[in-house]
């Protein structure tokens, strides 16, 4: 599997190169403060970070969508970039299929769009208006739109946020399959540490406007939470994110226990 970027030497030109990237929306303070990042061709990087830490800001910079935002830095990205926005951003005046195939210049655009929709579980909804889709369905339509155009770099901003566990696993599988075929570089924002570990070659944590933590996922074969290495990485990342232990609930249940004891 020489294609896995994680195994490449650093001599190969990176697909994405970011140097001392600064971005700020006002005088108060920068959102990105000298961020450096390289992504090798074909590498799958998951981006974690607090809400408001600047993940979307970084993605928009990479996509060249932040013309108005003050800042400096060097960004190099491939020609063909595809973005899954945090909001699904379907054109409300186009039916779902037309949204997916928009700008697709292949002769069989409609067929490919139909197939992509089927793959994200929206077969039969080609003619629906975006407002007729549920939140998760909109998200999947927007995913289909990005995947159907074989980008060299895929920037995905929480593309699975509104999906249930099963659908999410299906989308993981789909994304992995497409990555294997087309080998794009991927930068995927997620809030789900498990998802990051399962999917990515590398997990980075954004904090204070720089990459605070950069962890290569060295797990192999079937990545399972049961694997102690998985659990270790998970714990480390959660610590980086400020969480001592996941899903602890000190407040209520403790209180209740105390109350119970008192009653």
């Amino acid at each position, binding site marked *: 599997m020489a294609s896995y970027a994680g195994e490449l030497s650093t001599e190969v030109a990176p697909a994405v190169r970011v140097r001392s990237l600064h971005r700020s929306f006002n005088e108060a303070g920068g959102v990105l403060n000298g961020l450096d990042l390289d992504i090798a061709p074909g590498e799958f990087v998951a981006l974690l970070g607090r809400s408001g830490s600047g993940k979307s800001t970084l993605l928009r910079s990479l*996509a060249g969508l932040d013309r108005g935002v003050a800042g400096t830095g060097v960004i190099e990205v491939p020609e063909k970039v595809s973005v899954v*926005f945090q909001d699904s*951003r379907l*054109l409300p*005046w*186009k039916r779902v299929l037309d949204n997916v195939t928009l*700008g697709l210049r292949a002769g069989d655009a409609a067929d490919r769009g139909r197939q992509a929709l089927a793959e994200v579980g929206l077969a039969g909804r080609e003619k629906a*208006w975006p*407002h007729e889709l549920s939140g998760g369905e909109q998200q999947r339509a927007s995913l289909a739109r990005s995947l159907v155009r074989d980008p060299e770099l895929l920037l995905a901003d929480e593309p699975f946020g509104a999906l249930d566990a099963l659908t999410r696993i299906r989308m993981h599988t789909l994304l992995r399959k497409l990555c294997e075929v087309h080998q794009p570089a991927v930068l995927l924002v997620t809030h789900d540490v498990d998802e990051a570990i399962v999917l990515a070659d590398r997990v980075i944590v954004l904090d204070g406007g720089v990459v605070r933590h950069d962890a290569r996922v060295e797990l192999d074969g079937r990545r399972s939470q049961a694997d102690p290495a998985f659990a270790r990485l998970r714990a480390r990342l959660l610590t980086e994110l400020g969480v001592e232990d996941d899903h602890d609930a000190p407040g209520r249940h403790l209180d209740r226990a105390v109350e119970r004891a008192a009653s």
Partner: protein
Amino acid sequence: MTTLTGNLSAPTRALAEAEDVRPTRRRLGPGEPIRFGGLIGIAALLLAWVVGSATGVLDPRTLTEPWTVVQTAGTLIENGRLQESLVTSGIRAALGLGLGVLVGTVLALVSGLSRIGESFIDGPIQVKRSIPTLALIPLLILWLGIGEPMKVITIALAVFVPIYIHTHNGLRTIEGRYAELAETLGVTRGEFVRHVVLPGAMPGFLLGLRFAVTSSLLALVVVEVINATSGIGHMITLASNYGQTDIIVVGLVVYALLGVTADAVVRLIERKALSWRRTLAS
């Protein structure tokens, strides 16, 4: 408990399949459209006219009675003047409308999509629309003569302004995030115009069209003063020269009919073409 019916707790009442009890919530939007509601106001207006005339509140010398108007209209139809006027004016208005809509849309696209285009086009159009059409007529006569081309172009000049302003405004107020999206999809400029700009500006364009249609009708009154021998505008002008109130009122009724119908047609198109919208009205 907020329910539609109060007797739900009655144990004898079975919950039939067809029962439909929904939470009542104060409705803030305008609610369901009333079928043919638009005609109520017009009917009221007509009624007021009839009653006002019958009771003498409305002086027939100022506003002819409806029955006299019907009678006069009958005469005008009999001797063919009304139909002839309608046809002549209809052709003029349609040509002017078509030309104006085309020019207005193209200018709006050029000016809306490029700042250079805007800086050249927008100012002169603001100047144009600040100037009474009547005052432009001498220039237009100078350049175009007193024949049909002058008339059609004058109408087009009246029409293209609302089309331009509304389309330009509609275009400029398309949400920026859709342009962003289009940029990341790598669409060409043509595709951008076709798939994002035109549909996005469509609500604005259609509102402009509502004004354009009326403008094309109103412009008839101005242009048919000059070297016209028939047309609704000509008919009204001539009649007011001679103080023939009844014919004037026939003309105005025709105007009202045409205006209301045209507006209704545009709004129907609006409803069909913009069915993707979820607004307060829907």
